[in-house]
C-alpha cells in the first residue's frame, strides 16, 4: 500500500509539467484537496495595485483519475504608463473612452489613472489514466474582464518509461481571445485626439488566437534528484496591440511634443502603438529539485526567443530550509530581456512622421511599451510555511520585485522609470 502511494505521488510529480498538479496537499491517499490563497500586489508610485483571491479544488475520482478546478478573481486599480514619455512641459491626454482628460506635470512619466478592472478566471483539468504508464489531461480555461474574454482548451499526454523514472510529455493548447477596448479599437499610428473630437477608431472589438505545443522529458536522476526539460513553441495570430498605449511625436528641434503643420483639428502629438499581427515564440525550460540532507533546492532556467526580436533568460532559485516544525524558503529570481525590434522611444516629426500630414512614414510597427524594452527584473522573496496538522498547512510569502528599464540613448528627463513592486501572499491548504 505504501509503495502504491509513493508511486502515485511520483507519478504526480513527473506530470507537474502541466502546472496543474504538484500542489502541496496532493497526497495520493486523500480524495479531496483544497488550496486557497490571497495575493496582494502593489507597485510603488501609485501604480497598479491588485488583490487576487483564489481557490483550487482537486478531487480524486479513483486511483489514477482526477478533476482539478481553479477559480481566481483579480481586482486591479491604479495607474499605468500610457506609453508617452516625460518631457519638460505638462502634457494633456484624453481618456480611452474619449469622455475625459488628464494632465501630466512637466518632468513626470504620463500615467493613465483610469486603469481599473476585475477579472474572473476558471480553470478545469481532467486527468484520465489510459493505462498504468500513460495518461491524458484535458484542460479548459475561461476568463473574463471588462474589456477582454479568453477561452482556452488544452490536451497533454504523458507516458512513463524506464520503471517510471522517465516521463515523456507532449501537449497542445489553443486559446481564442477577444478584446473590446474602451472607446473602440484605435487605428494604429493614428493620433489621439483631444476630448470632444471624434476618436480615431476602427471598430469595437478584435481577436487573437494562440496555439502552443510542448514536448518534455522528466527524469529521476537518483534518490535525491529529479530534472525536467521542456521545449515549447507557440504562435499568436491576430490583434496584439495594447490599445491604450501611445507613442510621443517629438519635434527634433525643440525636443517637445508637436503635431504636423496640417494636422486635423483636435489632433494631439501622440499616436497609438502598432505591433505585428503574428508572433512565434519558443522556449527551452530546465527545472530541477534536489534534496540536500533535510533541505530542498529548486532551480530553473528558461531561455526564450521569438520573432519580435525578444530573447530572454530567466533564473529562479528556491531553497527550502527545514525548521523543527515549519520551513523557511528564500527565493531569488533574475530575468533579463532584449527589446523588441519595433520598440522605440518616440517618433520624430520629419523623419518618422510626415511634418505636414502627420502620417507615420518610417515604420509599420512601433511601440514604447516598457514591457517590450530591454530590461532586467530581480526578485527577492521569503516564504514561511507552517503545517497546522497532518492535513493542513498555512504559508505566508513576501517578495520584492525591481524592474530596471534600459534608457540607453534616451535624453535626460525622458527616461522610463524603474518599477518596484511588493507581493504579499497567504496560502492555506487542506486535504481530507
Amino acid at each position, binding site marked *: 500500500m505504501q509503495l502504491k502511494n509513493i508511486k502515485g505521488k511520483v507519478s504526480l510529480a513527473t506530470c507537474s509539467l502541466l502546472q496543474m498538479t504538484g500542489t502541496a496537499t496532493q497526497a495520493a491517499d486523500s480524495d479531496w484537496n483544497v488550496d486557497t490563497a490571497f495575493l496582494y500586489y502593489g507597485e510603488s508610485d501609485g501604480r497598479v495595485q491588485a488583490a487576487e483571491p483564489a481557490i483550487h479544488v482537486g478531487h480524486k475520482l479513483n486511483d489514477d483519475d482526477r478533476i482539478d478546478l481553479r477559480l481566481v478573481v483579480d481586482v486591479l486599480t491604479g495607474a499605468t504608463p500610457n506609453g508617452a514619455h516625460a518631457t519638460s512641459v505638462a502634457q494633456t491626454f484624453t481618456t480611452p473612452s474619449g469622455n475625459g482628460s488628464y494632465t501630466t506635470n512637466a518632468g513626470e512619466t504620463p500615467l493613465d489613472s483610469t486603469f481599473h478592472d476585475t477579472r474572473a478566471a476558471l480553470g478545469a483539468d481532467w486527468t484520465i489514466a489510459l493505462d498504468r504508464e500513460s495518461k491524458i489531461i484535458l484542460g479548459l480555461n475561461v476568463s473574463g474582464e471588462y474589456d477582454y474574454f479568453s477561452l482556452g482548451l488544452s490536451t*497533454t499526454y504523458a507516458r512513463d518509461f524506464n520503471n517510471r523514472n522517465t516521463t515523456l510529455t507532449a501537449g497542445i493548447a489553443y486559446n481564442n481571445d477577444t478584446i473590446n477596448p474602451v472607446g473602440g479599437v484605435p487605428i494604429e499610428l493614428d493620433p489621439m485626439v483631444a476630448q470632444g473630437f471624434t476618436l480615431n477608431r476602427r471598430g469595437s472589438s478584435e481577436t487573437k488566437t494562440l496555439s502552443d505545443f510542448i514536448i518534455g522529458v522528466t*527524469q529521476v536522476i537518483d534518490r535525491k534528484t529529479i530534472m525536467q526539460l521542456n521545449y515549447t513553441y507557440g504562435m499568436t495570430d491576430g490583434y496584439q496591440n495594447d490599445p491604450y498605449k501611445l507613442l510621443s511625436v517629438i519635434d527634433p528641434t525643440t525636443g517637445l511634443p508637436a503635431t504636423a503643420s496640417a494636422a486635423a483639428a483636435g489632433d494631439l502629438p501622440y499616436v497609438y502603438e502598432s505591433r505585428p499581427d503574428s508572433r512565434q515564440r519558443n522556449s527551452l525550460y530546465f527545472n530541477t529539485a534536489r534534496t540536500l540532507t533535510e533541505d530542498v533546492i529548486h532551480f530553473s532556467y528558461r531561455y526564450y526567443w521569438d520573432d519580435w526580436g525578444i530573447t530572454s533568460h530567466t533564473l529562479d532559485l528556491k531553497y527550502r530550509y527545514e525548521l523543527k516544525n515549519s520551513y523557511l524558503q528564500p527565493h531569488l529570481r533574475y530575468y533579463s530581456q532584449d527589446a523588441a525590434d519595433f520598440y522605440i522611444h518616440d517618433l520624430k516629426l520629419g523623419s518618422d512622421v510626415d511634418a505636414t500630414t502627420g502620417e507615420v512614414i518610417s515604420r509599420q510597427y512601433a511601440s514604447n511599451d516598457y514591457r517590450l524594452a530591454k530590461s532586467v*527584473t530581480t526578485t527577492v522573496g521569503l*516564504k514561511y510555511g507552517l503545517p497546522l496538522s497532518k492535513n493542513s498547512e498555512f504559508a505566508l510569502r513576501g517578495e520584492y520585485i525591481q524592474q530596471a528599464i534600459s534608457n540607453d540613448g534616451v535624453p535626460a528627463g525622458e527616461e522610463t522609470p524603474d518599477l518596484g513592486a511588493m507581493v504579499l501572499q497567504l496560502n492555506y491548504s487542506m486535504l481530507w
Partner: protein
Amino acid sequence: MKSVYLLVCLALLAGCSSMGVEPWERDLLAKDSMQLVPDYFDSFYDDHIYFSKEASSGGKGVGGGGCGCN
C-alpha cells in the same frame, strides 16, 4: 549539424535509461517539497505577475488562461 543534434538527443535518452531508482527508493522524491512545482499558487501567481510585466512567458507547460494584462 542536425545529425549532431540527433546524436546528442539519442545519447541523452540512452543515458536516461541507466538513471533512476527502484520503487522502494522513492521516499525523498515522494515528498511534497520535492515536486517540480511544489507550491501550486506560488507558481500560478508568479506566472501571472511576470506575464503582465515582461515580454516572455511560458515554458513550464501549456494551457494557461488568457489575460488582457499584456
